[in-house]
């Protein structure tokens, strides 16, 4: 047991740091700094640089483009990425869909879809939740009926509505859970389909969330014709894919390195802002106690994640324990957002979204404080709500 980095690992850190510094797109950095709404091209700018370098998907198996890094190298990579405040590749293709394809897909499907994900040429979105199927995902109703068309080929005709589709407004393709057997038990009648978002019958409608942003969408599917070869894994066994995907979705969600960075920002804000007594906010007895408790909580999460990574390195995949990372990780992210909002005091109130580009009232760090906090409430709801995560731990880990 030790926490030491080897000379090779330290050299790797220097290499990673230098690469990010020299290659991070300047226009993306400028947009991030100004808080501007990102365009499709900006979202993909860093992804494309990483694709050229071969660093898009460190966790994939090497044969499909993974880096073959050790868990420690991946840890260093995430630390350096967070430190430099990079915009990581979007998770939908790289982190969520790709593991399903390389685990359950045919050779043909791997060849067809993995390169587009890797290179950032194809933007993927997720079609899981429905208006009537949130935590009870398996109750989903979007229907796919198998037909033989006039061309002699087999298709699914898909009808239904998906919701909370993040950044679906930019998506080229989506991965969808659909019901292919209405008579089977809920989990047993689901299939995993890849759908071209340009197919006739697909309509994407924005949902504006409470902080005023457009991140999520409704997706309506009206007699959408999907070739059978776009199904991953067996018909009616899509739930197996869905579960695997959710475990991967959870393991990255702890966000330790990003939270460390944000904690550092909170401390900066609290040394700039004043307490009622006139000292810095960070010297205020009540505020500093909250910061200290959060910092300790984050340290505990960090070491729990390191233990999980060490377990994965010894051959265990991300198991149900990753639910702990999801619960604690999101609680800490939300607490950080709360404390930033608390720290900025009066200047949490101005709502600048409609005042035009670069509008700023009060200190720069206050501009997004409320919006981030409001938006951040989603994290304990998505990816399986934290209550569902507790159900998973109760069943899978505690055997209840």
């Amino acid at each position, binding site marked *: 047991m030790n926490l030491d980095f080897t000379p090779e690992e330290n050299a790797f850190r220097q290499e990673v740091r230098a690469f990010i510094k020299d290659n991070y797109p300047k226009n993306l950095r400028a947009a991030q700094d100004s808080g501007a709404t990102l365009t499709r091209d900006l979202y993909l700018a860093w992804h494309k640089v990483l694709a050229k370098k071969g660093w898009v998907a460190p966790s994939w198996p090497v044969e499909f483009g993974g880096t073959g890094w050790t868990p420690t190298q991946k840890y260093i990579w995430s630390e350096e990425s967070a430190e430099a405040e990079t915009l990581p590749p979007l998770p939908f293709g790289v982190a969520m869909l790709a593991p399903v394809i390389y685990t359950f897909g045919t050779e043909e499907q791997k060849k067809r879809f993995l390169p587009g994900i890797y290179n950032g040429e194809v933007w993927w979105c997720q079609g899981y939740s429905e208006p009537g199927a949130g935590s009870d995902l398996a109750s989903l109703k979007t229907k796919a009926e198998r037909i033989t068309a006039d061309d002699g080929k087999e298709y699914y005709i898909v009808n239904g509505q998906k919701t909370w589709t993040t950044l679906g407004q930019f998506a080229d393709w989506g991965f969808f859970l659909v019901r292919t057997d209405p008579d089977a038990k809920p989990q047993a009648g689901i299939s995993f389909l890849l759908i071209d978002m340009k197919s006739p019958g697909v309509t994407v409608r924005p949902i504006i969330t409470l902080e005023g942003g457009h991140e999520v969408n409704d997706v309506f599917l009206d007699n959408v014709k999907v070739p059978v070869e776009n199904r991953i894994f067996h018909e009616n066994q899509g739930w197996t894919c869905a579960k695997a995907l959710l475990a991967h979705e959870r393991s990255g969600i702890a966000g330790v390195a990003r939270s460390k960075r944000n904690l550092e920002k909170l401390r900066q804000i609290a040394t700039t802002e004043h307490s009622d007594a006139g000292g810095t906010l960070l010297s205020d007895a009540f505020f500093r106690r909250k910061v200290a*408790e959060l910092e300790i909580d984050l340290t505990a999460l960090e070491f*729990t994640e*390191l*233990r999980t990574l060490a377990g994965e390195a010894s051959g265990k995949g991300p198991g149900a324990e990753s639910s*702990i990372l999801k619960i604690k990780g999101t609680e800490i992210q939300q607490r950080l957002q709360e404390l930033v909002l608390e720290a900025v005091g009066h200047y949490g109130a101005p709502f600048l979204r409609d005042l035009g580009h670069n509008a700023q009232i009060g200190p720069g760090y206050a501009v997004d404080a409320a919006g981030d906090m409001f938006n951040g409430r989603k994290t304990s709801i998505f990816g399986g709500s934290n209550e569902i995560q507790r*159900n998973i731990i109760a069943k899978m*880990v505690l055997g209840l």
Partner: protein
Amino acid sequence: MDFSFTDEQSMLRDTVASYLADHYSFDQRRAALAKEPGWSPAIWKAFAEELGILGAPFSEELGGLGGGPIENMIVMEEMGKALVVEPYLGTVVIGGGFLKHSGYAGAEALIGQIIAGEAIFAFAYAEPQGRYNLADLKTTAKKDGGSYVLNGHKAVVIGAPYATHLIVTARTDGGQRDAQGISVFIVEKSAAGVSTRDYPTVDGFRASEVIFENVKVGADALVGPEGHGLPLIEKVVDEAIAATCAEACGVLAKLHTGTLEYTRQRKQFGQPISSFQVLQHRMVDMFIQVEQSVSMTYMATIKLADDKQRTKAAAAAKVQIGKACKFVGQNAIQLHGGMGMTDEMAIGHYFKRATMIEAAFGSTDHHLARYEFLSLGQAA
């Protein structure tokens, strides 16, 4: 970075666990605690001779197993699972720590006696007025030619009734709460002028109020530098905190698994109460606390060797463990219902130990304040 245990370390854990499973059941423990002397010298002898674990953190040249903090962690966690009262912490971790870190002339001989099970240490540091401030000392050690004369009152000295030696913190100089002027002494408990009032503690240990009345010790009783003993004390106490956190991990694991087992058996409304979601989520939250505690114990134990990171790490770990002891302990009793209130069930005994660990070497508030200072600087 590496979170795995060596083969030797895994073997150490297995050895301690299987011995305690055979010789330290809840009933065996209760029987031993109920009669004098309130602990089991035979078990201690077995630790020394059969298991050889009293040498776990000492070098092989001194007759030990060549381990360090990780080995202490392993032993203490297993001891926590069995609620062991025998003084591994006081003797091996604390007594051994002072001997190892101080350059004390008699260290080699005394460590040999520790490993052999002959020397048993208790740490006389707390005082009735001092709360958790290690520097708040009224006990004095006045230089008298080539010797020192000790006077004072040490509070709740855990394990003192069974100790052969006391590690005593005392003022050789300075005011009551000064960081300077503090020295450490090894005093044989049989020394003239040492008197004790012995009593049991709520969690099954034995402890004493120890009174020093003109206790004369030689210059060779001084451990570490005269008047500059506080850094040494803080270092050993941080090691004791890490070891206590490890013990807590054992206690917490038992509180959690005991609650899982009980709720699976206990039926109400025609079904096991473990099938109720409100209880399942509580047990998940307990589980998260246990896992976070294990993580923090690893973290603090690994960082003990680094004087720059040690203090903050120990404080952070103790905050996590203190909160976990309260949450997991109290919920374990709650979920056991009325049965949790009975003396006959082990769960209550784990709860009592967990509750005492909360305050051991400083409460959650104490360590939070310490962490704040180390991480955020001085408060306004």
